[in-house]
């Protein structure tokens, strides 16, 4: 015996709630929660999407096997970004294998910490004693270097430069939810997406050409992919596919870490008492002049709580989706095959049942005794369950390495009114809206 799923009010003929999703996605998802309760249906063009809310329903969502709730079919806006044969064009079993990525393992991460710190030093080398910086520009470039060095290799990293930043920006801006109607509509953002992808393919080709011309013996992931052959001796992966793999590797860790770095710095500037605590913690930790090592980064509890609270209030992904492949039952409700199912990270992370005073920036909610992040199906900035972000530990390590450098070298303050800093939710990939400038000044005791 199943019960009808409540339908969200509003929406327009044909497009349903799609325009509202593009205009104010967090508002839409919260409205659905407020109006419908733990379960509510909305429409994205011709597609029905059932939203699940609250720890119980979210747990059911995150525990469902791939055969029942499929990821690939739910993200049509990603296929043109990654291209054919990559990630959402692969079978669940292939994806599962690929997820056990060795570069994110503990052993490999030991080498990454110092590299990330060094990249941060390099990016700030030209800063001088004081000035201002646009957070989106700065962190988007920094995280392209750190991610590529860690995930693909230092040699490849050295072949990159600032020209890549706008290309990634165009790919990320090419994730308009209108893709639910058609991911290839003649829209400027989709044209830019496709042009950026073509340029990245040409760029990757030029790297291979140069390596070949110089007769260089490369051993990084790129070269390995290039040498894999089919049984008939032809190359298994063409440059377009390898570029797609590069994009997909970078994509998960790029805009997410970039946006989180920006918001963490902004929240610290807005909350000087927390800034003072974090700076004191870092100064004490590195007082003996020790390196920003992997082990040092494991134990920075106050900074870690600040980062967790930043991720709670400003999750870089706001909506996770699946497509029902078989009937999915939760309590008395049944979601039918073909319907999409969604969980909103943005709404869940501010659920008053799970978080005390949920709108307030309060990193102490993660300190011993409260530990609100132990509610693993409510605190979900990295998702939960079998698909929980496999790079979560890497991301936290990377963020800590970046701030271990920035906050020990410079003092920061807002360069705009505090309420003028906003996330841009007009695309499925969340970015900080520009302008988003802060001022920096080399710390007095360190002034050169």
């Amino acid at each position: 015996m199943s019960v009808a799923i409540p339908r969200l009010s509003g929406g327009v003929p044909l497009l349903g709630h799609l325009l509202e999703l593009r205009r104010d996605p967090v508002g839409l998802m919260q409205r659905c929660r407020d109006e419908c309760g733990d379960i509510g249906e909305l429409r994205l063009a011709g597609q029905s999407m059932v939203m699940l809310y609250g720890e119980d329903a979210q747990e059911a969502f995150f525990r469902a096997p791939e055969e029942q709730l499929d990821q690939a079919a739910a993200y049509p806006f990603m296929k043109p970004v990654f291209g054919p044969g990559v990630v959402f064009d692969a079978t669940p079993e292939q994806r599962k294998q690929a997820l056990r990525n060795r570069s994110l393992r503990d052993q490999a991460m030991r080498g990454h910490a110092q590299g990330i710190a060094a990249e941060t030093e390099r990016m700030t080398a030209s800063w001088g004693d004081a000035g201002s910086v646009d957070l989106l520009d700065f962190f988007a470039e920094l995280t392209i270097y750190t991610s590529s060095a860690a995930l693909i290799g230092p040699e490849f990293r050295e072949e990159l430069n600032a020209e890549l930043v706008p290309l990634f920006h165009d790919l990320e801006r090419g994730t308009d939810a209108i893709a639910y109607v058609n991911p290839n509509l003649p829209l400027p953002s989709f044209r830019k997406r496709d042009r950026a992808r073509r340029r990245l393919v040409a760029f990757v080709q030029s790297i291979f050409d140069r390596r070949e011309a110089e007769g260089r013996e490369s051993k990084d992931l790129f070269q390995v992919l290039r040498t894999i052959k089919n049984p008939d001796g032809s190359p298994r992966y063409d440059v377009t596919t390898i570029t797609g793999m590069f994009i997909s590797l970078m994509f998960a860790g790029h805009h997410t870490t970039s946006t989180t770095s920006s918001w963490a710095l902004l929240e610290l500037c807005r909350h000087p008492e927390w800034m003072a605590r974090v700076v004191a913690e870092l100064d004490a930790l590195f007082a003996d002049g020790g390196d920003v090592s992997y082990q040092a980064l494991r134990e920075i509890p106050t900074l870690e709580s600040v980062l967790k609270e930043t991720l709670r209030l400003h999750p870089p992904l706001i909506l996770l989706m699946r497509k029902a492949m078989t009937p999915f039952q939760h309590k008395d409700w049944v979601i039918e095959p073909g319907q999409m199912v969604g969980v909103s990270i943005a709404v869940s992370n501010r659920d008053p049942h799970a978080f005390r005073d949920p709108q307030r920036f309060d990193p102490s909610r993660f300190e011993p005794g409260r530990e609100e992040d132990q509610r693993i199906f409510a605190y979900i900035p990295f998702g939960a369950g079998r698909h929980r972000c496999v790079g979560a530990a890497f991301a936290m390590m990377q963020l800590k390495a970046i701030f271990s450098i920035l906050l020990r070298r410079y003092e920061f303050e807002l360069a705009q009114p505090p309420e003028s800093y906003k996330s841009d939710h007009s695309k499925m990939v969340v970015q900080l809206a520009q302008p988003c400038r802060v001022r920096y000044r080399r710390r007095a005791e360190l002034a050169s």
Partner: protein
Amino acid sequence: MKIRVDLDLCQGHGVCVEEAPELFALDAATSKVVVLEANPPEALRAKLAAAVKYCPTRALRLVEQ
């Protein structure tokens, strides 16, 4: 203390084996975690806590008795 495993969530990433090889192994057939020591000694508390903290799917819990 006791170790509680949620095999539904475990995807065999093996982070726990790297953090606490005394306590965990991966099953060769299923790729899922196997607990070697259900009631670990106090001396291994820090290692167990790290395994719980860094499990990518949060499949492990440390339960006080």
